[in-house]
């Protein structure tokens, strides 16, 4: 079974903190994605990566950055967390035709 593991299920951080969300996949997939999910807005793509050290901006990259130093790991970084970044964050990986998702990290910024 493909496994996509997000490091935390729930996180609470303070405004202005630097936050790291980690995602690891075990199927040697080239593509990895970070989305945020908000009620009524669906899943919005923040960043994706199609290879090690390669990244592309999605639809809402402002306030975020990413890192992919190894193929299996894709990190999302909130440089200075703000309350409007309170959301559910979903990581996914895919080779070509199907994406597999982690369980999500519910981040609350206070």
């Amino acid at each position, binding site marked *: 079974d493909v496994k996509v593991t997000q490091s935390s299920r729930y996180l609470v951080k303070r405004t202005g903190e630097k936050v790291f969300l980690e995602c690891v996949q075990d199927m040697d997939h080239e593509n990895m994605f970070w989305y945020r999910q908000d009620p009524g807005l669906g899943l919005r793509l923040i960043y994706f990566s199609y290879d090690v050290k390669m990244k592309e901006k999605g639809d809402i990259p402002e306030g975020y950055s990413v890192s992919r130093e190894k193929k299996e790991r894709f990190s999302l970084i909130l440089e200075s967390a703000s309350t409007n970044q309170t959301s559910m964050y979903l990581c*996914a990986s895919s080779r070509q035709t199907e*994406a597999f998702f982690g369980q999500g990290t519910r981040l609350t910024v206070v």
Partner: protein
Amino acid sequence: AQSVTQLDSQVPVFEEAPVELRCNYSSSVSVYLFWYVQYPNQGLQLLLKYLSGSTLVKGINGFEAEFNKSQTSFHLRKPSVHISDTAEYFCAVSGNAGGYNKLIFGAGTRLAVHP
């Protein structure tokens, strides 16, 4: 650029009734199309996908979808729903643009099945 529009944000339906969840997409390249389901407090699970070939695609839990290229639609159907089908459903499109596949989702449709 690719985009996905799910035409209904909420669909209430009685148990054992048929249901259709509507999805339209736009893309300048050939696409793959997907429906995912998210049960409460869970991650996303693939229901079905269209890659090529037959335009009628069957998925898990009795769901099916039809790809209509001329109408750029990929509507999801089930002839008889159960209470356990209550969930949020997401339509997604993936197309090869610039050498990589970007996966874009719609806003979701919340299916509520009532007894």
